[in-house]
């Protein structure tokens, strides 16, 4: 009888989870505001539009670069050379079967999160993904890891499962950029050990008609930090599904996103933060600009376990409606079982502030330009959550250009 290697065992277990949970249906509560059909249909429904001008150049000369094209790891375009304090494996390599941390981590955070909320597409990813990179960081990395997702075909399917393990007191900035296929189901399981830090920036491409499901499962140990920022710009459909489990005391977690939606588009952020230990902080800041008939979705939950006293949870979601046909659908939730906590949530939507618009116009600036400037100003609150100033500059520069603001 053939013996399965540990990674294959994890995948078989994930298959069983998937059989139990199955794919989400249109009436599932956590797909309340957008249809999962794009990800459950036989073939991809979206199409990719390639435009080299629509990228943010996150790469630096010393960065570690990983490239996926149409869902497949492209070693030619990747730079996995000799870097201190980091090891990288591709899922397809033979050696991963012998690496304990990979076999322990693969599917484990996803599996744990299923106890709180069944996520069929996550189990599906763990079960059937054949592509992915497994990264372990053991020191304080100065250079960034940049994962670039691109596509050379108009219609393709990508199923990618990445792992990131950050050892005690290690730190890294991970940047994921691009859409990568016309239909994407990609996942990151991120395990941050004591005092570890991960700054995670994601840009889902711009002006693309791809369907993107980006799932992120994070487990944090004592006094660790995780900061995530996502940007979507005029994408047809992007769903950011993030689940964070704060499992050590004194953790800090910040999730933020800025998005601009246009005609027919839907930008969905579904976030679940579980405070499982005392003295942890979490922040959620979501800003969505909605033009035409765009739909912005935010479902954010803060769960506080009975033993998580002194929890500090903050959540804000704001929609800027630039057209009467646009919609901002939100469902902020708090589920608190401890009595000594601070948890706040707020959600607002409205159109451009008339006083601000008048102020700018009264200085001689044409109305369209003023609206672009105020759009940038609106998104800035989310952008301010990014800890790396250089990345903030790059993202802000991209927005200034795309919004047609006449700054040189």
């Amino acid at each position, binding site marked *: 009888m053939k013996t399965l290697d540990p990674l294959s065992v994890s995948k078989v277990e994930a298959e069983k989870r998937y059989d139990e949970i199955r794919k989400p249906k249109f009436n599932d509560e956590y797909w309340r505001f957008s249809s999962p059909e794009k990800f459950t249909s036989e073939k991809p429904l979206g199409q990719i539009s390639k435009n080299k001008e629509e990228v943010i150049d996150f790469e630096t000369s010393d960065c570690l670069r990983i490239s996926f094209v149409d869902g497949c790891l492209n070693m030619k375009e990747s730079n996995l050379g000799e870097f201190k304090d980091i090891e990288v494996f591709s899922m397809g390599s033979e050696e991963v079967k012998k690496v304990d941390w990979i076999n322990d981590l693969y599917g484990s955070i996803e599996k744990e999160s299923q106890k709180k909320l069944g996520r069929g597409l996550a189990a599906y990813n763990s079960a059937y993904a054949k592509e992915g990179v497994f990264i372990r960081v053991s020191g304080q990395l100065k250079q960034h890891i940049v994962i670039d997702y691109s596509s050379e075909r108009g219609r393709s399917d990508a199923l990618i499962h990445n792992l990131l393990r950050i050892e005690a007191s290690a730190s890294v900035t991970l940047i994921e950029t691009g859409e990568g296929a016309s239909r994407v189901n990609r996942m990151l399981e991120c395990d941050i050990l004591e005092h570890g830090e991960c700054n995670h920036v994601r840009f889902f491409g711009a002006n693309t008609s791809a369907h993107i499901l980006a799932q992120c499962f994070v487990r944090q140990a004592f006094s660790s930090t995780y900061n995530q920022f996502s940007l979507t710009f005029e994408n047809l459909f992007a769903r950011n599904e993030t689940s964070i489990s704060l499992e050590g005391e004194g953790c800090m977690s910040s999730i933020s996103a800025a998005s601009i939606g246009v005609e027919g588009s839907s930008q969905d952020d579904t976030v679940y933060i579980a405070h499982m230990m005392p003295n942890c902080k979490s922040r959620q800041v979501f800003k969505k600009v909605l033009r035409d008939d765009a739909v912005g979705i935010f479902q954010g939950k803060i769960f506080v376990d009975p033993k998580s006293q002194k929890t500090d949870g903050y959540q804000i979601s704001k929609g800027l409606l630039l057209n009467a046909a646009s919609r901002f659908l939100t469902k902020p939730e708090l589920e608190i079982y401890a009595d000594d906590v601070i948890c706040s949530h707020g959600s607002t939507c409205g159109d451009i*502030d*008339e*006083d*601000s618009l*008048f*102020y*700018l*116009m*009264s*200085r*001689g*600036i*044409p*109305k369209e*330009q003023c609206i672009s*400037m*105020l759009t*940038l*100003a609106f*998104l*800035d*609150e989310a*952008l*301010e959550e990014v800890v790396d100033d250089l990345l903030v500059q790059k993202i*802000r520069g991209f927005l200034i250009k795309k919004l047609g*603001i*006449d*700054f*040189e």
Partner: protein
Amino acid sequence: MLEINNLCVELEEEKKGILKGVNLKVGSGEVHAIMGPNGSGKSTMSYVLSGKPGYTVTSGSVSLSGKSILDLEPEERASEGLFLAFQYPVEIPGVGNMNFLRTAVNAQRKMRNETELNAAQFLRLVKEKSERLNVDMDMLKRPVNVGFSGGEKKRNEILQMALLEPKLCILDETDSGLDVDAMKLVASGVNELKSSSRSFVIITHYQRLLNHIIPDFVHIMSDGKIIKSGGKELALEIEKNGYSKLNLTS
């Protein structure tokens, strides 16, 4: 410079009359102060002149240098040389003050078919104006008005005025929320900008600002009309006796 004839204005939504026949002539190089009790229509007048939405002009006319401005958009009025220094300048996070100022200067130059300033030219200009107005260059690197103190916000307004070089400057309660030193600083900035081709309309509640910016004329506004005009001594009279001692019915 500015000529307002029988200007009547109501709030667009409430159809409530606010200005009920304002008449005012401001000549080139003149400084006019407009005083009056709360709710008399002073700020509304400044907004209507600048083109703020939400008001309906039911009758009357306004011309700037002989050109009617009531049908112009706010940005067109600005390019014609009208500037409103706000009582509460708006904060714009994410937009650097320097970028904002240059965008404004070049937008107006473009509208007037003048050559736009490049980055180096603008930097020279802004440095020169900032030094003259005692504005810290650090203020220019920060987002527009974000985290500015009350005094900094008002000084930023005066800096904008200096860069945009308007013909007519309307200062809407520029002294509100300022301590004595900040007020003196702002007033000296305004005095720096006085010229024979630039006029000022200064809206204020208190005479104290007019100790530092000496007006040529003082007008008292009440219930949507200018009911009394005089020289700078009228402001002193108001300070001494208040509005209640004046006969406020025209």
